[in-house]
């Protein structure tokens, strides 16, 4: 269904000269710096899959997605979507795609939301009856009834994301590409969007590729995960195996009622976790919950004094990448 074969993308940036007459020299120079944004990435995604595409900032996630939907031309390699190349048959391919860039909207900013859908319908040359049905269904699922008359610029971020999702689904594409669809949303809105996406995948059988920074998105939605770093894919498989590989790195901050006695470091040195900081009454430890449980850590810590408060921190994304290596 979606095939990426040995994709490479190199950006060519002119080198800016320094020093005297630098402007003239930059203008005339033919020197370039090559930046490899995507390096030999291959994968296949079959119908109905829900794939998470993750990696740190600047790893090449957006570049890959932009190549998949025909915005960028790969330096080498090939993309095939339902047997067509999005670069060579762009207009034909984009009809089968729904794309949402979380940071941008595809809606008409100053017009009421309803107008955006009308315009999109004529852009995609949808049959009147089909459009009516489709919009009816989407309006109901995504709860857009009350938003239809409001200019897009006045929608909240969560409302706008729902509207954008509807816009990308209006022409009933088989495939959805979502670039950071939950970015900047509050917890409730995030949960809402996730529920919709789950429904799109399981009930409507849409194939979905999603990039995100939010590990919860991945945990709750994706059956398969591709991890990318420095332009190269470093993991491609199901979520369980990934979890097994990286474990669940956790940072715990434990606050004691009284100041900790000085000998604590020796006492903790032979543990299954490491002390990474100590400040007055608070000891910070790092552990992997694959090797030890939180209870075990607490048990041992409680020997140092009465625990007043515990704080668990989410694993940091860059750390996870390091662990995969």
């Amino acid at each position: 269904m979606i095939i990426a074969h040995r994709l490479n993308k190199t950006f060519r940036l002119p080198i800016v000269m320094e020093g005297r007459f630098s402007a003239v020299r930059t203008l005339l120079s033919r020197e370039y710096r090559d930046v490899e944004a995507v390096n030999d990435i291959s994968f296949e995604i079959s119908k109905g899959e829900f794939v998470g595409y993750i990696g740190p900032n600047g790893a090449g996630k957006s570049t890959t997605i932009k190549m998949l939907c025909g915005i960028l031309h790969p330096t080498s390699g090939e993309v095939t979507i339902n047997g067509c190349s999005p670069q060579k048959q762009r207009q034909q391919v984009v009809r089968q795609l729904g794309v949402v860039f979380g940071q941008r909207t595809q809606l008409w900013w100053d017009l009421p939301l309803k107008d955006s859908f009308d315009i999109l319908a004529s852009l995609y040359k949808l049959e009147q009856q089909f459009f009516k049905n489709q919009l009816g269904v989407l309006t109901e699922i995504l709860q857009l009834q009350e938003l239809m008359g409001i200019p897009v610029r006045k929608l909240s971020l969560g409302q706008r994301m729902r509207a954008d999702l509807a816009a990308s689904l209006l022409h009933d594409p088989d495939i959805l590409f979502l670039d950071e669809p939950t970015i900047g949303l509050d917890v409730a809105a995030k949960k809402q969007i996730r529920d919709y996406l789950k429904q799109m995948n399981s009930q409507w059988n849409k194939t979905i590729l999603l990039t995100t920074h939010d590990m919860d998105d991945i945990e709750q939605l994706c059956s398969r995960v591709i991890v990318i770093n420095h332009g190269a894919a470093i993991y491609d498989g199901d979520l369980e195996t990934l979890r097994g590989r990286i474990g669940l790195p956790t940072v715990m901050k434990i606050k004691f009622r009284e100041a900790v006695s000085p000998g604590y470091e020796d006492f903790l040195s032979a543990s299954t976790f490491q002390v990474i900081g100590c400040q007055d009454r608070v000891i910070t430890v790092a552990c992997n919950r694959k090797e030890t449980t939180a209870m075990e850590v607490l048990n041992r810590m409680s020997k140092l004094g009465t625990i007043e408060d515990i704080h668990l921190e989410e694993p940091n994304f860059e750390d996870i990448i390091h662990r995969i290596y």
Partner: protein
Amino acid sequence: MSWIHIYFRLAGASLRSQMQYKFNFILSTLLVFLMFGLELMTVSIIIYKFNGIKGWSVYEAGYLFAIMMFVRAFYRIIAGEINGFEKYLVQGMLDQLLLRPMPVLLVLVTRNFRPMAGELVLGTTTMSICLSYLIENKQATLWAIPCSLAVIVSGTIITLAIGLATATVGFWTHRIDELQRITDNAASIASQYPLSIYPKWMRITLLTVLPMGFTSYMPSLYVIRGELGLWILPATMLLAVALLLGALSFWKLGLRHYQSTGT
């Protein structure tokens, strides 16, 4: 046919967006009218005071000016955003346009659609005054009217082609505002006057590298001065179409090099 339908649909949406700020829309239309009016006034005062320019009478020079007003207005109506294309490249705004199942150019040209009413009114007024004077004095006949329409059409196509080609350079250089100042602004200011006032190197440039000389000057030689011959009109049209086709294939090549906001 359906593309034309979509064009009007999108242009209408853009117009309606602007109408959301009615006061602004009306005020800006009036001020633009005033702005171009002042420019026209300045130039006509000079040419009027000195009884023409390099053997071109006031009315002949006014005719050239009017042709360029139409050309510029239609160019901006059809493709206003090509003139401001840099932001699409630098801010990656072209991404969304590439996701539509239709030619990118078609989506681009409907953005920020502006009717340019001010320039059209001024152009029509100037054109009527000049042509009616020239016809009254037997220097031209009614035949000049359809000819002028043809000149405006071919001129618009030439300007469009040059504008498009300049914008396309941006796919490699990213920055094009400054280049457009030369190919768009300077060249169209230059074509408001008879080419004969310029030194040789500039005349040659305007007839070859940057063929803006064909938008108004060359065909006008025939239409209002009876020089050259009728052949110049189809020749200009042919050139215009060839330039546009060239610009379009250059544009297609450029799209392959679009870098989005990728770093």
